[in-house]
């Protein structure tokens, strides 16, 4: 009897877990609309934990996110590659522990002059743009948000 109860309890747990799984699976059928100001992934309305995780996914599996329209809010940062002389701009998001910061590079829609057309380092920005995966000559790729516009 004892063990029967144990089995029963474990079975119950499994059933609940499976039900949850189905509930989530059905809720995940995403709507595919494509208007001009449609945003696929809105990071600005997510919690820090979620932002970190989504950006992590974007960096590790960029193929899945190419072409998606992304809105994100973070701190402005820039850095110059000393070898190529190219300057990168980034939107950096601090996570809850502040040690696992994640960021995405971006390129603005209209060319701008640095530093006068850009916000100051570390100031809060919100951008919307298309997620792309740019390959360099040596084959190493990096994710970048193209055609970005600043929004309020």
């Amino acid at each position, binding site marked *: 009897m*004892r*063990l*029967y109860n144990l*089995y029963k309890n474990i079975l119950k747990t499994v059933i609940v877990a499976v039900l949850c799984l189905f509930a989530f699976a059905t809720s995940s059928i995403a709507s595919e609309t494509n208007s001009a100001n449609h945003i696929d992934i809105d990071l600005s309305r997510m919690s820090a934990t979620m932002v970190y995780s989504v950006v992590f996914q974007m960096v590790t599996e960029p193929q899945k996110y190419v072409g998606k329209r992304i809105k994100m809010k973070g701190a402005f940062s820039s850095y110059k590659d000393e070898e190529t002389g190219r300057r990168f701009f980034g939107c950096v998001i601090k996570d809850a522990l502040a040690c696992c910061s994640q960021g995405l590079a971006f390129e603005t829609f209209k060319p701008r002059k640095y530093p006068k057309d850009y916000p100051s380092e570390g100031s809060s920005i919100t951008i919307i743009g298309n997620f792309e995966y740019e390959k360099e000559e040596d084959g190493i790729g990096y994710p970048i948000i193209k055609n970005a516009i600043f929004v309020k």
Partner: protein
Amino acid sequence: MNQTTNLIKCSQLTLGYGSKNIVNGFDYEINAGDYLCIIGRNGCGKTTFLRGLAGVLRPKAGKIELRDNLKRKEIGYLPQITIAQKDFPASVEEIVLSAFQGKSLLLPFYGRALRERASECLALTRTENLRKASFRELSGGQKQRVLLARALCAAERMLLLDEPVTGLDPESSQNMYNIIKELHEQKKMTIVMVTHDVEAATKHATRVLDFNTMSNN
């Protein structure tokens, strides 16, 4: 005196932990129907010897022979209670039934025969009313009786008891001694008991083994 049957024969038995030998080259025989009390001061090897008999500790040299078709599973063992057990969350029933784990292979639950046997053993130690009670809430005497019931479940012919009355009040001790005496006389069980209580030992026992007089140290 009627003919005695050897149940256990120890020859040149050496027991110990690590590099330390506690029992050295010991010869001894235990006969069917014995009520054997083992006495001696702390650290003289009484408990070690009992652990050897119970098969918990392997002999470093010499051997322990089981005679007269005695099987390991016919020997019940009541070890000293540990601190961890004193507040262990388990029901009396769970503890007593655990005695069958050496017999059943992979049974997911205990059959009716085993449950009935457990009830009998609880009745023999006068603990049947405690069946559903929590072990950690029992008194010292009740705890010992439950553990004795567990030993009985695993035993058919012989009981090895390690200081069964230590820490009990006089009434509980007397109770315990009565139960053991009953098992010896009515159930014809062979009893081997390690004890500090020399007076009781000489009163109930049919044989006394004094570890103090052994050549060891």
